[in-house]
């Protein structure tokens, strides 16, 4: 599956940029940590884009539609 292959490439890329682990009493699971990194990259990209769009709109004095605390990222349905 194409999407899965892309995800695997992203995961390999992520593995290069790593820091030491430090977790709580629950085991977050190795696969789940990679999953959060994957989700995080997608979401952070969306979040950053939204932030700039928001700032640009504010610069021109326009109040964005449906303004809320939850600025949509890229990984919503």
């Amino acid at each position, binding site marked *: 599956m194409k*999407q*899965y292959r892309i*995800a695997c490439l992203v*995961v390999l890329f*992520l*593995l290069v*940029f*790593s*820091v*030491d*682990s*430090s*977790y*709580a*009493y*629950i085991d*977050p*699971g*190795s*696969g*789940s*940590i*990679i*999953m*959060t*990194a*994957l*989700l*995080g*990259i*997608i*979401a*952070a*990209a*969306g*979040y*950053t884009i939204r932030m700039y769009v928001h700032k640009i709109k504010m610069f021109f004095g326009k109040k964005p539609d449906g303004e809320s*605390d*939850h*600025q*949509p*990222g*890229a*990984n*919503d*349905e």
Partner: protein
Amino acid sequence: MNICGELEADTGSFRDRNNRVYYAERKVLRGVSEAALKNWSKISGQQFFKKMMENGDLIPTKLLPATDRNALTILKEGWAGVLQHQKIPFISYPYEWTFGMLKDSALLHLDILERSLKSGWILKDATAYNVQWIGTKPTFIDIISFEPYKEGNPWGGYRQFCMMFLIPLLLKAYRDVDYIPLLRSDLEGIDPVQAVKIFPKSSLFRKAVFLHIFLHAKLQMAFSDDKASKQTEPRKAIRHSKAMVLGTIQGLHRIVQRLDLQNKETIWRNYADCHSYDEDSYGQKQAFVRKHLQSTRWKLVWDIGCNTGTFSQICSEFSDYVISIDGDQYAIEALYQKQKQKAKGNILPLIMDLSNLSPNQGWLGQERKDLESRGQPELLLCLALIHHMVISANIPMRDYLGWIRQMNAAVIIEFVGPGDEMTKVLLKNKVNQYTDYTKENFEQIARERFLMVDSCPLKGGDREVYFLKPKS
């Protein structure tokens, strides 16, 4: 687990070694470690945290002085400090909650997480057991779960959030699979590897299913060889920026926010007016219940077999707290959604099969408690339930009344006679082995155990409602 005199350690609070919950003199106390106390000292002064506590999103909590009698006993157990929480009126578990309740508790968890992260804090876990209810208002109870967010770290609770909140909600919303038996049998929740087997391939087009179940399961399986290879060194973790964590949480919030029950409108229409009474008889029944309710102020009432909670609402006027229980998830959902609109409700709706009540379970059978251990009612309301118990569930009438007597509470009970149309419906496809299901037999068994204070025939004598008090 009795520690010293009146002090009792909670049997379900042991997983996080940084704290332990104790009960003393009807107070809820928490012994905390040095590290947890340090976190409390920092976070309790922060504005975002105070605000969440003020609006009830967090259970009101204070640090007890070391001179407090109960604190002294707990400190002797080796804890560095003692917190006191406001008492939850009645503990409940995710496998007793409706879809709407699980969804609202998931949203509360994500809201708290997001607000905390913006202020430099994170929740170390994401178990649904950290949310409890005051009426229909969810509140987060695990104050020790807050810890400073370290830049670069992932959200360690993601997998637990998926297993305890997201996967059960996705199963119900997209496949109409009931999560209650699954959450009740596995207290850790539903593993993505198991969930992926339930969803058909066509569900993979739904982004939430693809990412949080399918891909999550694949990655989990791909890295499960850590255990097989006996690798003991922690794997290098991936650096997560705060924006990545925040973005993930916000994405999950939007997914959960949009989830809903299938065929919701049809369900609500079916529950709009679902009793078999004419107006006169229904009025008589309500008047009888009201008459006996108003005789005193009840601390705790259980309305078992409550349906959509018409009588629970009458009870709520004369009681401090009402537990409304029914096996019909949609009836309880209807009650929850109705009660949620109220600013300060005192009704807790719960789903439970009344012939298979929540048991003691978990570690040593003490981690999650059975229904009776969580608070004894002063009044038990059992209206139009007995025919379901005796005929549908095949519970002998003597055993059913015996169980009710064990509560040692006043009882308002309705007997639905063998000639009633609803009893006939239940008997339609069954061999009638219930020849002892008669009003005379019911009254005889009831009189052996209770004082029959009052009664009132309903529906032309096909039914009768009784007010009983336990014999001493």
